[in-house]
């Protein structure tokens, strides 16, 4: 038996326009998330006040990375998981899971923009070229600040989406945040005790966030070795890996091979960038 059937929206135009509408919807849901709102308020507050105590110690205001990156990761994780109970319905919608995941990844633009604002606010107190940033060129100082204050605000939320897609444990994002926070702070100790050790440097750079200089006071600034530029590449590659890992979930045979291939490429780039971040740039620690 054959029949002419009409179903669904008359103006159906496929995944692309639905993606835009879906991303806008997820953005609206995300910006009212209380965890994100808390993170935004705290980040802007810490960026618009002089954080001398911490900046004169590690040469950066780490709070935007902590709040927008860490708390942002928790917020996107919850956003991603929010439809999990509705999966029996959502899972048979014509919009496939990778498109929904991509729409969720778009929300990371909010903390990213906030991170940019925080960077500019912070520069009012310690502009590029300040002695506190150590013995780096001015462009390199800019790269360091972008890597420390902007990229984590993108990477954290993207990691939250990836973890939300793959991990069922409700507290996974909080645990991951604590692990990363703990690792970053632990990895700073070996370079403090063995400033010229390559192993200590590798440990410090094997992280989504790294400190580049240590200032006990305004006069004596220790600049650690490595290349901040390649470290920026490593961070961006980690962001790409987070997105691709998230997109793999629910990918059918039409796009799975492409996503998997892109993931291998991103992993290879990340590995190369990490190696270059260790071997390029300053070759030894400088105290000034």
């Amino acid at each position, binding site marked *: *038996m*054959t*029949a*002419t*059937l*009409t*179903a*669904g*929206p*008359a*103006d*159906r*135009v*496929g*995944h692309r*326009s*639905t993606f*835009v*509408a*879906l991303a806008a*919807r997820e953005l609206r849901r995300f910006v009212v998330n209380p965890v994100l709102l808390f993170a935004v308020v705290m980040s802007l507050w810490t960026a618009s006040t002089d954080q001398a105590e911490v900046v004169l110690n590690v040469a950066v205001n780490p709070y935007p990375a902590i709040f927008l990156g860490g708390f942002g990761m928790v917020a996107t994780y919850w956003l991603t998981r*929010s*439809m*999990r*109970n*509705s999966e*029996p*319905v*959502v*899972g*048979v*919608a*014509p*919009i*496939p899971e990778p498109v*929904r995941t991509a729409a969720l990844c778009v929300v990371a633009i909010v903390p990213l923009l906030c991170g940019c604002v925080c960077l500019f606010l912070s520069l009012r107190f310690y502009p590029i070229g300040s002695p506190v940033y150590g013995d780096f060129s001015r462009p390199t100082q800019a790269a360091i600040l972008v890597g420390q204050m902007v990229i984590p605000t993108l990477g954290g939320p993207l990691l939250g989406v990836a973890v939300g897609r793959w991990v069922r444990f409700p507290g996974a994002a909080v645990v991951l945040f604590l692990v990363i926070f703990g690792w970053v702070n632990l990895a700073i100790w070996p370079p403090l005790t063995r400033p010229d050790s390559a192993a200590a440097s590798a440990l410090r750079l094997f992280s989504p966030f790294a400190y580049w200089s240590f200032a006990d006071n305004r006069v004596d600034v220790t600049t650690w070795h490595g290349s901040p530029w390649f470290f920026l590449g490593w961070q961006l590659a980690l962001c790409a890996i987070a997105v691709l890992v998230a997109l793999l979930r629910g990918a*059918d*045979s*039409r796009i799975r091979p492409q996503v998997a291939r892109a993931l291998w490429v991103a992993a290879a780039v990340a590995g190369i960038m990490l190696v270059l971040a260790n071997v390029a740039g300053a070759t030894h620690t400088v105290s000034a």
Partner: protein
Amino acid sequence: MTASISSSISLRGVGRAFGATRALADVDLDLEPGVIGLLGPNGAGKTTLLRLLATALPPSEGEVRVLGWVVDVPAERTEIRRRLGYLPQEVGFPRGFTAFGFVDYIALLKEWAEPTSRHAEVRRVLDQVGLADLTTRRIRAMSGGQRRRVALAQALLGSPPVLILDEPTTGVDPEQRVTLRTVLAEIARTSVVVLSTHQTEDVAALCERVVVLDRGRIRYDGAVTELVDRAAGRVWLADRPDPQATVSWRTGTGRYRNVGIQSRDGVEHVEPSLEDAYLLLRGGLPDSLPSAGAAS
């Protein structure tokens, strides 16, 4: 979107296993527009069959075609999903969503990108399930029956040619059940509506055809009236449970309704219901056994 397509669902040699457990085996079915009731005890494979039809689950063996498309082929599966309404047995709702917000979100996932037409469609389906006055209420603040109707509303989006409903009337009050029957009967004029339920009265009221599943296999597939006819002469009232009855229970009048495979003489026969027929089938009534005669 308009397409000239086959309006039927067909299953050929379909089986589905979960590890060592075979939930479905050798299922052959052809479904045409109308309401098809799916009956069976718990664990019979009803939900598995519905999930196969809804493309939520691939078959372990055999072929499932919906509207001419094969569910195993990703591109064809998307075409099926564009024309599918599915109400699962259990639907969880995200925190903080209103009825309108949830159905609107699902409408977006069903490619209603244009807000004006989408919102109009969402209001239409919420009105259809009797929730027009509760569109702004948070789902968490709703009763179980109201939540069930929210879940049903999303399945009705776009008046899909294939509607798969897993126990749609669970928790719904009698008035709303009657309303929903009217809605489904209207949709079934052009759509295939497959309805799984434990409420035999819903099947009797709505369906022309019933499929009875038992331990993953089709036990009966045919007209509801034919199944009921098989029970004619095998249902009788008595003052006490009849030992020859397969099933008996005390009714509201204080008398016992007995249902037995072997017909009985000298007893007060009554008109069988679909439930009687179903119980007889479950109790071992052979498929080929003719009816025992008209009820007295």
